[in-house]
């Protein structure tokens, strides 16, 4: 005990006497800097220090640039989320938990019509009702907003037109809920009903009154919001395929089904600043949109993110009700709270797009995949939301993990008079991924090979480039496939089980952080910034705008800071709720938070670490290179007895300047191609996954029971294995919902028939299979300590794995999702007819006999395994681009090597006749090319 630091590690001693009284000078609470309830310094945990820097943690995928910053404190250890105590004790404050004094209750008047012009709104009776404090209509909100700067097509409340049943028309604030509800019945709105569009196929045609009008960029008079064409590679390769698959899919729209309905509280504080409380994944977009809609500079708005009771993409748009609350609060001069009921949640929607997807694929005589031809027509509902991006993702995220001879994609997103679709876990990639993986299963059957071997022999290696120019870095796809094959005992089950029992494989590929920050140039501003402050008490306050939506981003940020500074997690305090105190952050979408924010946090922590080590250098006389940072103590690496406490070093560093302050940022490296849309799907890293699902199908009823899932996901490095496993299991649940039972049902009148959690069938615990999460660590060179995403990618493989397993069980390919029992039964009836049997129990399930290609694939996969390992460990740094498998030289431009190698973003005129369903959007011209705007 020296220098007055009673709280030094290991020196706390007893603080109470035998009679229970406090010892003089000893504190009854953990002294500052002691690390909370555990004041004793822990030994250096070599099990969690990489072998490359002298520890015992195995690194089969090689070293990482952050290895030297590892202290064995937090990274890689299963850790309960730092906000879990608040949640399990009911103290977390969600949107509707915010109660401000004198609050008024806001309610929204919604459109009863699918599509109508608003001719007049008479609010006089509403205003006359005692207890009504404020009324607002579209006239109060003339400014448009939208999540993407290119497609701002929303208003706080309808201006001129309502676009779906449930669209916002007006709102009212009153002294209590009953008065507000009564007030809603007093609005007198005159509508002129217009002809609605529900079928996205109809949306491709010209309409009298398109749902939105984009001026000179409008596509003829259609309801097409966005069309995409992409073609890469050598299309001549698909001319004479050995095997091919052609599937037409119908996928219903699904909703996120988060537990917490939307809720918002708006309050104009005494200084005239707006304080807005909302459970947002992306508070920054709301911040921007509020400024636009309210005509108030951003610095006069403070967006406070409450705890988020589940988001999954459904809380990432700026929402009109957030604007309504702010407008009502401004008009009434009182805080206004709006909470949705479940029906309203479905009306604001932003769930996965209902999709018509057509996939044609071919394989050549060596079982190489010579072409993917994808057509996706997606139903956007009434507004653009994230749809611009979704239109690309439906195609471009299918360009990996396989090496392709050619790739062709046409996509179109159309407006219809339904609640708007948007971003949902696995954004845009899920539906096409399912179609592609099922196609591969079908081709493997034709080729008489095992579908896992077909995949293993066609994978892109680590450190390669996809056909569309995405930069793949770490890649754990092969290991994931091998692990699930082994875990599921695939080789003794596939095509060998009795009727009704089946097993299937599916893979996934997803971005780990969108490479393009939507609102700014990534070369000028970083993706993420983290501020850090260490005051005299030794606690570290981290300011980040990363929105924890339950995925554990706050924990991840706290963990990496704890790791770098070798401090217990309890000493790291992450502040991320208010836009006033957090640096601008793009929020939680595109699986970017851990990758980008943790990277920024590591940079800030390294800066603090350097200041601490320099201070220790002054005290101890040993250069920082020879100092070891361990639990609240810094010591000379050859003699641990020579050291200084963390607090002492900290105070030395703080001399003359007070608290230590640091800021860290993450920016992605320049990457990607230059063609139109090249940025869509671009990410600094990608996650890979492979799942095997096992199902029981009741052939008499068509009921599917998924019994087991072996789920391998490559997350680079599991910073928190417990959180990664949780994400994998949760993803399985959500994906199973989409493949088995969840759908937004639009009835014959175009109304959403099931806007409630009884009829929108999210699987219950009874439907949950046993999930065996398998973590693959490929050590991403740019990820924080090697980590990549684990929040969205793990959802993708569930769908195709189940669909393929159902085929294995009953021999029937189904392409209508979800596979509700009636869909399956219809398939079984067809199968019975085809097989000429009366009883479904007489059906036979498919069997396989491997053909001559099988040994060839096994051999190629074994060679590729050696190749991949060398590339993963950077022993082989030769460039590798998609096309090498087909014999091209990666060092030369592919265009120079093969005649007809295409990189096209618009169809050639002669292609127009043969385009698929969504491709038909290319038959129309934009207004500017039609001889003028209307």
């Amino acid at each position, binding site marked *: 005990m020296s220098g007055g630091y009673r709280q030094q590690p290991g020196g706390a001693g007893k603080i109470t006497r035998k009679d229970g009284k406090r010892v003089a000078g000893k504190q009854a609470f953990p002294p500052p800097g002691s690390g909370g309830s555990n004041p004793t310094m822990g030994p250096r945990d070599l099990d969690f220090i990489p072998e490359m820097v002298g520890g015992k943690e195995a690194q089969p995928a090689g070293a990482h640039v952050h290895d030297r910053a590892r202290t064995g404190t937090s990274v890689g250890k299963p850790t309960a989320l730092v906000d879990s105590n608040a949640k399990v004790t009911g103290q977390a404050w969600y949107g509707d938990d915010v109660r401000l004094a004198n609050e008024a209750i806001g309610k929204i008047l*919604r459109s009863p019509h699918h599509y109508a012009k608003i001719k007049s709104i008479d609010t006089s009776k509403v205003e006359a009702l005692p207890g009504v404090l404020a009324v607002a209509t579209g006239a109060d909100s003339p400014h448009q907003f939208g999540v993407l700067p290119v497609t701002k097509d929303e208003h706080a409340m309808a201006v001129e037109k309502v676009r779906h049943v449930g669209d916002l028309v007006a709102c009212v604030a009153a002294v209590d809920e009953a008065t507000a509800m009564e007030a809603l019945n007093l609005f007198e709105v005159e509508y002129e009903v217009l002809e609605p569009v529900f079928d996205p196929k109809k949306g491709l045609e010209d309409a009298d009154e398109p749902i939105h009008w984009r001026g000179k960029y409008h596509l003829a008079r259609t309801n097409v919001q966005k069309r995409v064409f992409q073609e890469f590679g050598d299309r001549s390769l698909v001319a004479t395929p050995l095997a091919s698959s052609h599937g037409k899919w119908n996928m219903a729209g699904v909703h996120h089904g988060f537990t917490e309905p939307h809720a918002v509280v708006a309050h104009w504080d005494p200084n005239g600043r707006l304080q807005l409380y909302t459970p947002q994944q992306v508070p920054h977009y709301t911040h921007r949109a509020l400024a636009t809609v309210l005509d108030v500079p951003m610095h006069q708005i403070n967006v406070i993110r409450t705890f988020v009771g589940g988001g999954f993409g459904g809380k990432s748009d700026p929402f009109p009700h957030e604007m309504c609350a702010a407008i009502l609060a401004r008009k009434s001069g009182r805080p206004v709270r709006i909470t949705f009921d479940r029906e309203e949640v479905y009306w604001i929607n932003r769930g996965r797009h209902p999709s018509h997807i057509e996939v044609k694929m071919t394989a050549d005589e060596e079982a190489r995949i010579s072409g993917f031809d994808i057509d996706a027509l997606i139903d956007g509902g009434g507004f653009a939301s994230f749809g611009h991006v979704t239109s690309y993702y439906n195609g471009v995220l299918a360009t990996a993990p396989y090496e392709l001879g050619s790739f062709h994609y046409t996509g179109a997103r159309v407006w219809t008079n339904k609640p708007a679709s948007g971003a949902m876990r696995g954004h845009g990639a899920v539906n096409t991924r399912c179609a592609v993986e099922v196609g591969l299963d079908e081709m493997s059957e034709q080729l008489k090979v095992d579908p896992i071997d077909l995949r293993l022999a066609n994978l892109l290696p680590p450190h390669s480039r996809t056909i569309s120019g995405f930069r793949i870095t770490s890649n754990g796809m092969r290991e994931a496939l091998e692990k699930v094959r082994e875990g599921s005992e695939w080789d003794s089950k596939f095509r060998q089980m009795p009727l009704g029992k089946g097993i299937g494989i599916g893979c996934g590929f997803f971005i780990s952080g969108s490479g393009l920050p939507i609102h700014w140039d990534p070369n000028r501003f970083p993706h993420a910034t983290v501020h850090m402050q260490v005051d005299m008490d030794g606690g570290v306050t981290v300011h980040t705008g990363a929105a924890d939506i339950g995925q554990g981003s706050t924990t991840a940020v706290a963990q990496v800071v704890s790791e770098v500074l070798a401090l217990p997690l309890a000493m790291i305090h992450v502040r991320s709720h208010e836009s006033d105190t957090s640096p601008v952050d793009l929020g939680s979408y595109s699986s970017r938070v851990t990758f980008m924010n943790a990277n920024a946090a590591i940079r800030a922590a390294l800066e603090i670490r350097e200041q601490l080590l320099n201070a220790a250098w002054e005290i101890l006389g040993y250069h920082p290179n020879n100092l070891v940072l361990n639990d609240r103590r810094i010591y000379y690496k050859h003699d641990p007895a020579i050291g200084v406490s963390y607090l002492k070093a900290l105070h030395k560093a703080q001399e003359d300047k007070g608290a230590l302050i640091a800021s860290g940022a993450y920016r992605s490296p320049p990457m990607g191609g230059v063609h139109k849309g090249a940025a869509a799907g671009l990410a600094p890293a990608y996650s890979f996954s492979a799942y095997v699902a096992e199902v029981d199908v009741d052939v008499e009823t068509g009921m599917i029971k998924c019994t087991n899932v072996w789920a391998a996901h490559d997350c680079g490095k599991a910073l928190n294995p417990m959180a990664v496993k949780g994400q994998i299991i949760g993803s399985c649940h959500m994906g199973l919902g989409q493949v088995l039972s969840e759908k937004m049902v639009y009835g014959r009148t175009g109304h959403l028939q099931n806007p409630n959690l009884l009829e929108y069938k999210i699987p219950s615990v009874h439907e949950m299979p046993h999930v065996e999460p398998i973590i693959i660590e490929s050590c991403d060179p740019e990820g924080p300590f090697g980590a990549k995403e684990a929040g969205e990618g793990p959802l993708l493989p569930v769908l195709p794995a189940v669909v393929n397993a159902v085929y294995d069980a009953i021999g029937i390919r189904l392409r209508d999702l979800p596979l509700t029992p009636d869909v399956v039964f219809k398939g079984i009836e067809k199968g019975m007819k085809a097989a000429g049997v009366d009883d479904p129990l007489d059906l036979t399930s498919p069997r396989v006999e491997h053909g001559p290609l099988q040994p060839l694939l096994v051999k190629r996969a074994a060679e590729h395994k050696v190749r991949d390992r060398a590339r993963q460990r950077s022993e082989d740094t030769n460039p590798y681009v998609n096309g090498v498998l087909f014999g091209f030289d990666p060092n030369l431009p592919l265009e120079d090597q093969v005649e007809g190698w295409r990189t096209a973003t618009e169809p050639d005129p002669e292609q127009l006749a043969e385009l698929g369903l969504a491709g038909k959007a290319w038959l129309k011209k934009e207004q500017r090319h039609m001889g003028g705007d209307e």
Partner: protein
Amino acid sequence: MMLMPPFTLHHPTTVDEACELAATLMAAGESFDWVAGGTDLVPNYKWHINTKPHVISLAKIQGTASISSNELGCMVRLADLTEENGVHPVVVQAASKVASSLIRTNATLGGNLCLDTRCFWYNQGEDWRRSIDWCHKADCGTGADCRVIPNQNTLCVATYQGDIAPTLMVLGASVHLIGPNGARTIPIDSFYQLDGMKKNVLEEGEFLLKVTLPEDANRRTGSYQKLRVRDSWDFPEAGVAASWVEGDPTSLVVATTALESIPRTHPEEVASVLEAGWNGNASVKALSTAVQKSVKPVNNTALPPRYRRSMVRVLTKRAVQGLLE
């Protein structure tokens, strides 16, 4: 945020008091609903569906939760319908499949038998129903047409989705009704009355007091088969109950639920099969097909009617499987 409209909640403590209360309200021209566990009524009230200014609770009436092999009071909670309590195994089987364990703790037998009929044009919030311009069952004074089968506004085709009624039917149970005009006992077979709005024979002011089972019900064995998407929460999309005296096919009784506006037994279909003489599997097949043909589900629940109807065959087959053993 789902505020119920205001209503007065009454808590009679005896059957007589309840009947008196009902008579008083009727005399005053005030409408009212009965409530037992509330798991059916309260959601409808939250959605503002056919709400009334008065609600009379049966919860505090003494002696309405009797439970034995031959008598079940209306306030018996579904969670208490167990074999340990002497309840017939077929009833237990059905009760254990109702909704979720949480709901079964509150829901009552009486409430389940008097369950409101369901329809996806009807079980919706007020804004939603306004957007379809209301429906025949909750027309809000507009005289709206049926949305399931348009151009007919005489009958409501909402579906009865209770699980327990068909099992009591195949066991030959009787229901005891009581109201201001006195008590009556009728076979549960004739309790239900075809129409999604009328639902059953209860007159205004009458409520279901208890269910009794005949002495020989214990000699019967049987099964209840439920079709649903998820193994929790979901109402039946189709349900088939069957019972028989062990080894005696001629005693077979079959009842269906969740296919029409009322649950019902199928004596004619059973009789026609028995007439030809019981012949194991062949009879089961003939019976399943006959029952399937006799039901006419409509499109107003989660699964399409064609599929539900097809499944009646499978459910019937599985319900009577025990007869073949």
